[in-house]
């Protein structure tokens, strides 16, 4: 289920990274199972998936830390499949930052320029610029141990950006930060990316992060790509049950329940926020879908309330309602009551049967590290 690559060939400008039938096996475990992917120049591209889905292995193959078992990796049209990391024009921001503890912030940032023998004056200017970009001017003399997690994250970013790589690879860089800081860094990262105009490939398991930051994203599951597209495309038109479930909460109905509601047994997905509660005697009009059921569970979320409704035709739907004029007491009183649900049929998205891969997958990436 890869992305067709015939849209643009690697030789034309515009493609920063191209993966062709890339496969990676660790002994018996297939971590990446024949992936085709293209990332465009200047794009903020996310690889989204649960742990063990192959996204990190993919990133590590682009960086050169792992060699693909088969297939090719092209950077700017050049085959780099067999090149070591130090010959590739990409830089990585590591999940644990991997700052050199025995060097100061300045030495860390300068490292890449130093080993590439950039002249000293040029080096000093570029390091100063990079530190300014991540708002760490004045911190150059400190050791990584004297910095907070967020500051270390910025140093790691500056250390990679200072080399002006063709592609910047980010491996869950915000994973270790608390929520507030993470949200601030998301905005800042996006701004920096637009400022420098670099291609960012961003690995994350956080669907919200992928949706808010990316120009396009690929959803990974079990070593394969389930879908590639813009955040709106992936969210509004999930290609598979897995994507529907992983990117945002979603309901998947199939079999008898699907036939009763749409006249077709093919599985479909409907987003919780698209469903409304109506009077029990409400009649379907136009392209409306409607179903009756019993409220199993009510979760009051402050701004909204989540209801789990057991349908009379089988299956269950999760719905989310804004608390426009519902108090918590009123919301909780609905528990156990019969309700009628109504939604527009055009919001139904046919999907392939849910693979059930969420949480149930083996974790080859963690195993090899």
């Amino acid at each position, binding site marked *: 289920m890869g992305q067709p690559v015939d849209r643009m060939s690697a030789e034309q400008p515009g493609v920063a990274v191209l993966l062709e039938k890339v496969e990676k096996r660790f002994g018996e475990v297939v971590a990446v199972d024949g992936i085709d992917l293209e990332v465009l120049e200047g794009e903020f591209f996310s690889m989204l998936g649960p742990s063990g889905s192959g996204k990190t292995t993919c990133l590590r193959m682009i*960086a*050169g*830390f792992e060699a693909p078992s088969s297939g090719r990796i092209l950077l700017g049209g050049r085959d780099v499949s067999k090149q*070591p*990391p*130090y010959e590739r024009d*990409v*830089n*990585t921001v*590591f999940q*644990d930052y*991997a*700052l*050199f*503890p*025995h060097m100061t912030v300045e030495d860390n940032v300068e*490292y*890449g320029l130093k*080993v*590439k023998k950039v002249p000293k004056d040029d080096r000093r200017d570029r390091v100063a610029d990079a530190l300014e970009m991540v708002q760490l001017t004045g911190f150059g003399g400190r050791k990584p141990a004297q910095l907070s997690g967020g500051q270390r994250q910025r140093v790691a970013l500056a*250390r*990679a950006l200072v*080399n002006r790589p063709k592609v910047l690879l980010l491996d869950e860089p915000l994973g270790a930060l608390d929520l507030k800081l993470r949200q601030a860094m998301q905005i800042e990262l996006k701004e920096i990316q637009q400022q420098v105009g670099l291609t960012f490939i961003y690995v994350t398991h956080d669907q919200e992060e992928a949706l808010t930051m990316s120009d396009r994203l690929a959803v990974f599951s079990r070593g394969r790509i389930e879908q590639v597209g813009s955040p709106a495309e992936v969210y509004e038109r999930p290609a598979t049950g897995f994507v529907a479930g992983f990117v945002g909460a979603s309901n998947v109905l199939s079999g008898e329940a699907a036939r009763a509601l749409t006249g077709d047994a093919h599985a479909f997905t409907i987003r919780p926020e698209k469903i409304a509660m109506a009077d029990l005697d409400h009649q379907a009009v136009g392209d409306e879908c409607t179903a009756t059921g019993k409220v199993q569970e009510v979760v009051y979320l402050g701004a909204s309330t989540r209801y789990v409704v057991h349908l009379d035709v089988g299956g269950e739907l999760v719905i989310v309602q804004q608390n426009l004029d519902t108090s918590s007491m009123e919301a909780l009183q609905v528990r156990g009551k019969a309700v009628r649900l109504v939604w527009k049929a055009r919001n139904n998205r046919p999907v392939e049967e849910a693979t059930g891969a969420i949480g149930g997958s083996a974790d080859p990436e963690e195993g090899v590290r």
Partner: protein
Amino acid sequence: MLLASSLWRLNELSGQVEHVAGLQNYRDIVTGPLYRIVTRRTLILAAGVTIFDIALAFPLAYYAARIASARLRPLLLLLIVMPLWANYLVKVFAWKTIVAGDGPADALFRVLGLHIQLGTSVWSVWLALSYLWLPFVVLPVYAAFERVPPSYLEASSDLGARSWMTFRRVTLPLVLPGVVAGSIFSFSLSLGDYLTPGLVGKTIFLGNLIDALAGIAHNQPLAAAIAFIPMVIMAIYLLIARAMGAFEAL
């Protein structure tokens, strides 16, 4: 006690220790050429043993920590530690036999066409001590290699450094405290040892001097004063080691 007795003096006529405090023993040590020569000789031996041990331990530890497979690693560590299970004297006498005239060492040099006879020379002492303290140097160096996260090496490579550059700029500075920690063992143990020089060689080192003064000459005040020489040297050594972060590596 050691300090107090180092300040007493031996009445040379009666052979009795006079409990009168004075610095005459220290004056003797500073002015007497014998003590300076033996101290310098002992320092050179300890430094020689330490350098040789580091030279052996470094590649050994590197191989065990970085190159050896997960299955080979415990076996290698076992081989490194195993000599510690054997009695000290057994190992010293084994070396005495190895380096003795017409012994295995002689035979080896003859095969190689070298006219070297170790016998009871300082070189034999040097070899025996290096062998004895090697495990104490390998282990901290190995631990230091183990403690460098692979992501540091990947980061260095990612930033454009080839293997040698990564080794020089990232691995080596991070392993150095472990090397210094290991050298504390080999250096201090060599400085104080008197059995091996006595049994394997004939040359007098500080340990033998103290042994002879206290045991044979019954000049305990002077022996006590001389015992302060290695202690002062080690105090300086440990201060330098601490400045290099060796204690964090232990």
